[in-house]
């Protein structure tokens, strides 16, 4: 019974992805017909500059915005650490509001803000927007780690002659590193699959994968997108395998 339940869950989770993978090898352009096995969509994918550019933009955006948001979020957490409980709760609350806000509201607000400031829309505006909506997620994952932190180790390091930066990077940083990493990954993923905010803050000629795919809706999504999605899925899958297996090896040795 348990096994049936679990396999049902996996079926629901993976059936759509599996369909997509199968279609990426379909020689016929329509999903209604199986035209034989082919790799041609994979070849034409790597010849399609627009899709590759969108992929590059997406990855660059995700990496940059996650990195910057992590730095800002980390600094914010350090600052909150030395605040009084009440102010900390207040600041934390304010930081959390954007997360609860509907994405479309955030997106339109950004557009209006950028217009009123006279900023040119382009890669820069998307980046700013992504950094902003990423920060709360980073804070949310670093903050609990910070709370568990024993402040006396930091003070001990200072007493033993380390300056504050040394003490931070040698003592505090390793302790909260898991929180920082998960915050970074969370921000990376949030930025990767955002559509609505990107849509409202993007300028002409700059596309991410999500906006690119959406524009294809009228004429039908190109099979190249299936093969790209398959590749991304494979990459994530392999990454997950690596992440899950490395620590175990370490423990054994």
């Amino acid at each position, binding site marked *: 019974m348990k096994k049936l339940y679990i396999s049902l869950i996996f079926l629901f989770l993976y059936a759509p992805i599996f369909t997509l993978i199968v279609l990426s090898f379909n020689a*016929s352009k329509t999903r209604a017909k199986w035209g034989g096995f082919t790799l041609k969509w994979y070849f034409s994918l790597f010849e399609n500059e627009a899709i590759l550019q969108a992929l590059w933009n997406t990855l660059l955006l995700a990496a*940059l915005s996650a990195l*910057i948001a992590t730095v800002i979020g980390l600094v914010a957490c350090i600052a909150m650490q030395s605040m009084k409980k009440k102010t900390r709760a207040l600041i934390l609350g304010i930081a959390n509001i954007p997360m609860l806000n509907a994405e479309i509201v955030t997106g339109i607000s950004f557009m*209006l803000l950028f217009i009123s400031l006279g900023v040119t829309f382009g*890669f820069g505006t998307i*980046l*700013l927007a992504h950094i902003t909506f990423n920060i709360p997620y980073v804070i949310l994952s670093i903050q609990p780690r910070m709370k568990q932190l024993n402040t006396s180790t930091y003070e001990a390091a200072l007493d033993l002659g380390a300056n*504050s930066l040394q003490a*931070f990077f040698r003592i505090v940083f390793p302790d909260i590193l898991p929180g920082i990493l998960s915050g970074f990954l969370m921000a990376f993923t949030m930025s990767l699959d955002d559509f609505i905010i990107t849509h409202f803050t993007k300028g002409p000629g700059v596309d991410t994968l999500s906006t690119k795919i959406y*524009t294809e809706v009228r004429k039908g999504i190109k099979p190249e997108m299936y093969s790209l999605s398959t590749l991304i899925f494979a990459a994530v899958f392999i990454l997950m395998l690596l992440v899950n297996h490395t620590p175990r090896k370490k423990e054994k040795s």
Partner: protein
Amino acid sequence: MEEEKEEMKKSLVLLLCGALTAGMLSGCGSDPAAGNNSGDNAKNDKVYVYNWGEYIEPETLKMFEEETGITVVYDEFETNEIMYPKVEAGASAYDVVCPSDYMIEKMIQNDLLQEIDWDKIPNAKKNIGAQYFEQSEGFDPGNKYSVPYCWGTVGILYNKTMVDEPVTSWSILWDEKYADNILMQRSVRDILMIPLKLNGYSANTLNEEELEVAKQALIDQAPLVQAYVIDEVRDKMIGGEAALGVIYSGEAIYTQRENPDLEYVIPEEGSNVWIDSWVIPKNAPSKENAEKFIDFMCRPDIALMNFEYITYSTPNEAARELIEDEEIRNSEIAFPDLSQHPNMEVFNYLGEEGDELYNQIYKEIFSN
């Protein structure tokens, strides 16, 4: 202690500022195309184009760049409704946009477009058929603002193996024989157009009694309909999942190629003819480049390349002459003679109240 804390704070602030500037710099540096898009400091070597997704042969953009030295900054939209607020808000200034008929009318009414200087676009009047300019009068009186780019009709696609009588009228969509085998479009104007035309009314009517009749007809039809869909009509019809589907003529040729049992007709009561046209917004950074771009797109060889890529009908008669495949050149689907179909209508912009009335009726149909 206190001093050191202070120092830590300072260095952190510095770190923060460093990160921010780095972010801004990399943001601007990595995308030169986004710079200088506002009106006053526009450079003359760029043209900003805003078009439907997958609505141009990418090769033609490269050819344009090579021939004129003007860089094309190309952007795409999904629907007219998504394009409009972006152009209206002026978030980004575009030189050339390609909306559909009723949206062009709305943009004209809201003073968002500039008049076109036809002398600067000699290829347009030379190559584009007169009947398309005539149809354009419906939304752009006097042909002042728009240059037709793609066009088509709305009709019935049917599977010859599943429908054995000749399809000539919209009324077949109400035939109980085909219960659960009918696909309808999920879009306000397209779906209401059908019962309006069937009853001999205008597809742009604001007469509430006529709309009431149309609404009731669609409610009566609902039990027979398999699904209300947007672009799944294509795949479902190719797969033989339905007998009859309402579809755009541009998709019909593609579906026929995939499944030869399919046939497309424009019902005798008339239908919608739609036109997507190039327009130049008021806040275009460079009208000169916009006109060069439009003129280039009207060249027969370029229009032919685009027709072959998009497969939607081209209004460019000179390009049509160049089509090698005789079957397509003379195809009744791709190039119907509009004089044979007297009741064809373009959609007009209905005004805000009209839009609201239509949306209200649309909601009532689906809440039943």
